[in-house]
């Protein structure tokens, strides 16, 4: 699969897909998208990268072990749930707040944090599986 065209296109493709995956993740609350889908797009991006340059290269790019990313995602999701306990409402109750920078208003919420957690779990776990199948685990 390491044709010249593919190897030239792969980095750009990977970068674009990753960017798109984050876009899909963040818009998910109001438009089609969300953590699951975003995560799957990101995994595809890494898969393309892996097919073009090999497993080792992907592991270096990721820096963290994919399972560690997955674990951090689960941690974020649980944290998002626990935050509501601090405000004396039941676990996983959605909490919202807005930050204003001049004209720009950003809505922040625990469901968003939760969704980021979902995204990371999906990215980590499935990338881990794909990489393990693609080459011997050496990291």
């Amino acid at each position, binding site marked *: 699969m390491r044709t010249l065209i593919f190897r030239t296109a792969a980095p750009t493709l990977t970068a674009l897909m990753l960017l798109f995956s984050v876009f899909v993740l963040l818009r998910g609350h109001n438009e089609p998208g969300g*953590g699951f*889908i975003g995560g*799957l797009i990101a995994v*595809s991006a890494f898969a393309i990268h892996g097919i073009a340059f090999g497993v080792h290269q992907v592991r270096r790019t990721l820096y963290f072990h994919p399972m560690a990313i997955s674990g951090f995602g689960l941690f974020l999701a649980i944290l998002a749930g626990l935050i509501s306990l601090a405000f004396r409402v039941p676990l996983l109750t959605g909490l919202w707040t807005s930050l204003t920078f001049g004209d720009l208003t950003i809505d922040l919420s625990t469901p968003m944090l939760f969704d980021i957690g979902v995204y990371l779990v999906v990215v*980590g776990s499935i990338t*881990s599986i794909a990489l393990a*199948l693609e080459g011997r685990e050496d990291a």
Partner: protein
Amino acid sequence: MGTGAQSLTLLALLLPFLGAIAAPLLTRVLKHNAAWVLALVPLWIFIHFTGFMGTVAGGETVAGFFDWIPSLGVGFSWYLDGLSLTFALLISGIGTLIVLYSGGYLKGHQQQGRFFSFILMFMGAMQGLVVSDSFMTLFVFWELTSITSFLLIGFDHDREAARRAALQALIVTGLGGLSLLAGLLVIWNATGINSLSALLGSGDAMRSSPLYLLALVLVLGGAFTKSAQFPLHFWLPNAMQAPTPVSAYLHSATMVKAGVYLLMRLNPALGGTTAWETILPLFGGVTLLVGTVLAMRQTDLKLMLAYTTVASLGLLVMLTGFGSDKAIEAAVLYLIAHSMFKGALFMVAGLIDHETGVRDIRRLGGIGRAMPVTFAAGLLAALSMGGLPLFFGFLAKEEIYAALPTGTPWGMLLTAVAVGGNALMFAIAFMVGLKPFIGARGDIPKKAHEGPPLLWIGPLVLGLSGLVAALLSGPAHFMLSSPMSSAVAGTAIEVHASTVPHIGLPLLLSLVTIALGLTAYLTRDRLREVVAAGLKAIGWGPDLGFDQVMRGLLKLSFVVTKIVQSGRLDIYLTVTFSMVALALLVPMVIYNELPVMPEMPMLLVHEWTIVVIAVIGLGAVVYAKDRLTAIVSLGIQGLAVALLFMLFGAPDLSFTQFMIETLSVVILALVMTRLRLSPTDHRPASEKVLDVTISGACGLAFGLLLLKVTQNPFDDTLSEFFETHSLAIAHGRNIVNVIIVDFRGLDTLGEIAVVMVAGLAILALTRVRTPDRKPPATLEGG
């Protein structure tokens, strides 16, 4: 009882466990002298319980209650009457001495701290067991004693024999525990009562219940395993693999009496029936005989004592089964006497072993001059065990003979059994408490000398208490025996036994016993040979049977595992999907719930095109020459379906489907490269037909199911709820996403945890090399 006193009793119940936590640290600092500090725990409990003696002797009871599982009406409750109080005092009193003794016995042992910890845990469990009121606490503590006993028997876990004995004890008593649980549940079911104190007052209701016999058999299953009744006695002698303090404490003075305790406790509720008065004396009598005869066979001091313990437990069960007031008195007196003299003799045996390095009765002799205190303790205990006047054992024996019915053949048989058993126990008592100390000096490797105070305090105090309790029999009966007998009988009983013998038949039987016992003591070597020859002729025992059963179980489970988990993926898939197809199709056909065939839908050209693409993809999967093509074709079919989702208004689903299909193709292709399969399919035609049938049936079944579901009226309450509330309370316009991250966040949390675990599992699987499959050869492996 005030709340203050109630809290103190709760503390007394919990303190051993706290002590168990502190023990290893304390032992690290103080070495074996930690025993002096740790002994304060049982000592304080002992003193705390003596505080109730006046109340209980006055015929009252002490109860306490804390909520535990309120939804089931189960409380952490205790109930102190004569029976439980006497047991509590025995456990904490002997426990104090045992902790001290362990300090000396395991001095310098690497794991002494752990030992203290285990023994205190056991103490807490046993203490809880005897004062429990609710069935649940009783059962929990009952199991805890089994578990701590397992830990203590297997304390020297680098020896195989110790591991085997520990496992055996756990399996036998654990099974008994389950039987007890079932029995208690049956009682609960039959009477609606779930506490002992309430049950004691409802004996008639219980006895007339149709479930009585079932409850009795199940409860006896628990009691007989714990109290080592024949033929389930074999675990107790094997438990002698434990360090001697354990043998003295668990396997003679306390834990093995839990079964007897249970029988005594339930006597007012379950006793008095023909079944009770037949089963108990029968098993008890056989156990008494078997135990004493087997004890004569042994040459190891501890094993001799272990078999006489089995015999004594048989005697106690037999007496409890008679149900007469006299018999109950006898059982109570013998139980108290036995705890004292047997605990003392075990500690003496351990002391001899510790100081001389020998436990073989044939090699021991003449060490009395070097170990005078040990000799004194041993002799005191032996005199009590032999049932000689002036000792508490004598009181017990007199009562036993006075209690035995002699009018019937059945009664005469039991009397003969009791006399024979007691005579042999007399012989064993002096073989342990006298023989090693007198006569010519034996073949002893170490130079014998007296042990340190930590070692001889315990046996000496227990030996002396057998004398003191008999001399002060009035107060002893008032404080302990009478309240305990009353609790067992369910009616007030006053015990009057004293060191003055009953003139008449009991005295005569006593004399016969002593004469027989002396003869047995003097001809011990000859008797041993006879018993050994007899056993050799039989050649099989329950201990061997246990191994056979365990080996059979292992073989059976191996065979079953091999059938159920053949390790062949194609068989798993065939079974799984056949079941899926059958589970879906059979009910639909049987209940005539097949869907009505729908009309041909009106589709536009581009929609038809997509459907056709999906069908072509499917065809390509089936007719593909090699596996890679098949995988890619499956992807084509999937993408076509994703497009359909998009066209019919499910963008999120479609989006996800696209990604899943893409990744499935990638990952399946990767799996194929790893599995090193041949690129083409080599299945024979017959297998292909079967596989096609199964997959066709599955597809048909799901299709029919979906059609049927859509033909039913659709309940859209939930959809409406989500539509109205998604934006209003969850600030999101994408309902699917809002459901995932907010309305059903907890589900999603579980799902992503599953995703992660699956990832970990697959990661682990990719690292597995070809596994070995060998049957486990033995029970070994602990």
